[in-house]
């Protein structure tokens, strides 16, 4: 058994007196998708941002054998290519003044500065094709695209440096139902290609169960239940998980 890619133990985040994440502990293996569910305000996004080192956290956070909380800033910056994030608002997470080509090639300029222009352009074109966009879109700007297409661009930008971990914070919540499946399928395919690990945050349990191997349930900053996806959804143990499942709207 190799060590998990991400090993979180007793991770806490404080905002002043308010504790948004209370001693979260879990592990995430390579090639695995972990769903993170709970109400808004439960601390899901804060936990994700703590893992991304976007907010200060206490506890233990080991990623690929390194202690992320103790890493010197320069080392952390270099390691960032290995853990990337996709956000809820596809348009809001793209710089409106960068063309698609510029947005997607930026991580390469940062993490693979030795690459020449031609090689970089080739990688960008390949990546755009991989996420289902035609090469012709590269010269266009985010506002020219629909939400689903913007999310594909954001995924291309996150994936181009081949991260080992992709954190997705409500990646399909703002998209049409007809487009949500396209994005979930794309993330699954990318995982099969690259064997990356995923932390998939959503309040939509019906979507989470389509992509997750295991699920964490979070309530008021605490992880109250975790388990294998099917087991957890078919026989939830914690009263909060049970209530969450009852609130899911059902088709007739």
């Amino acid at each position: 058994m190799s060590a998990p890619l991400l090993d979180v133990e007793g991770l806490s985040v404080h905002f002043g007196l308010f504790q948004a994440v209370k001693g979260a502990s879990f592990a995430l293996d390579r090639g695995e998708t972990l769903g993170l569910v709970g109400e808004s305000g439960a601390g899901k996004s804060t936990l994700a941002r703590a893992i991304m080192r976007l907010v200060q956290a206490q506890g233990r956070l080991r990623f690929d054998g390194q202690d992320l909380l103790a890493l010197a800033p320069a080392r952390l910056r270099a390691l960032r290519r290995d853990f990337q994030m996709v956000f809820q608002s596809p348009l809001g997470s793209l710089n409106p003044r960068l063309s698609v080509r510029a947005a997607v090639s930026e991580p390469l300029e940062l993490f693979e500065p030795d690459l020449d222009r031609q090689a970089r352009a080739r990688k960008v074109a390949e990546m755009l094709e991989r996420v289902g966009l035609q090469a012709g879109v590269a010269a266009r700007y985010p506002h020219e695209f629909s939400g689903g297409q913007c999310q594909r661009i954001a995924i291309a930008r996150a994936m181009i440096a081949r991260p080992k971990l992709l954190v997705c914070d409500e990646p399909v919540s703002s998209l049409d139902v007809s487009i949500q499946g396209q994005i979930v399928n794309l993330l699954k395919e990318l995982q099969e290609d690259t064997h990356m690990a995923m932390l998939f945050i959503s309040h939509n349990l019906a979507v989470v169960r389509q992509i997750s191997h295991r699920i964490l349930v979070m309530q008021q900053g605490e992880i109250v239940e975790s388990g294998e996806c099917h087991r957890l959804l078919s026989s939830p143990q914690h009263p909060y998980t049970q209530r969450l499942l009852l609130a899911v709207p059902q088709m007739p």
Partner: protein
Amino acid sequence: MHPALRIDNFSVRFERGDSSTMAVREVSLQVEAGECVALVGESGSGKTQLFMAAFGLASSQARVEGSVRYFGEELLHAPQAVLNRVRGAGIAMVFQDPMNALTPHLSIGAQLIEVLAVHGGAPREAARSAALAMLERVGVDEPARRMRQYPHELSGGQRQRVLIAMGLLGAPKLLVADEPTTALDVHVQAQVLELLQRLRQETKLALIFISHDLAVVAGVADRIMVMYAGRIVESAASGALLRSPRHPYSAALIRCMPSMRSPVAARMATLPGYPPRAGDLIAGCAFAPRCPKAQARCVSERPPLIADARGSIACHFPEAP
């Protein structure tokens, strides 16, 4: 008795310079008092523009045609005084984004009292207690404290309830709720839906529910109308439409809905492609390029919307009901 809202042959066109874009095409619909009709479709299908234009809220470039009658009274091209009387007091709209629909620099109380001042001219103390009672009614906890707070101090769910309270303060007979629960998590969503159902029963409120989420719609609507590229393509009673859709687009939307019961497959069902842009010229059926059943006729000849006992359908090759 007139229906609460009756829209006939309604079209909305936007004109910019010499280009013209059809956002809504020949839509007819009717909602009775106490009834809930859901309008379902993807972003850009014209759901929101339909009602914005119907109530005179669309931009000045919008050109409207047809008829929009509120309890028999024509609103299209009606004088501003008529629109002002009807909007807010008779018709209320609740918008999707609870953060942007409230004014950030006014307290919740001030914004609610303003509604009453505009529509009722009620004395300040009476307006205050009416606002307080309405907050309580829509399930806002600690209403007295909320009145003093500002929008940013409230959660998304609380803000959405404040917006619903604001819409209801004028005691409307028709409420258009535009994706009122899309920004909310499942718990709060269930509470908001329950509130809307209660209001229909208690006040005979006519409710138009705009959403892209069929599972949400399934629980609230009596009838569902499916909109694609500015047109109604199918309508029927909720149960019938969800169980046995006739239009391939309705069927595809239902297939794409992940449910808690459907088996987990290697890939989720998807609807390939994207809807046409509003400016595209379409000779035949707008859905044909994405339709698994499309034939040559679908591309060249637009299927008319045909009404029958079950509802209405616009498709050359519909599923048998």
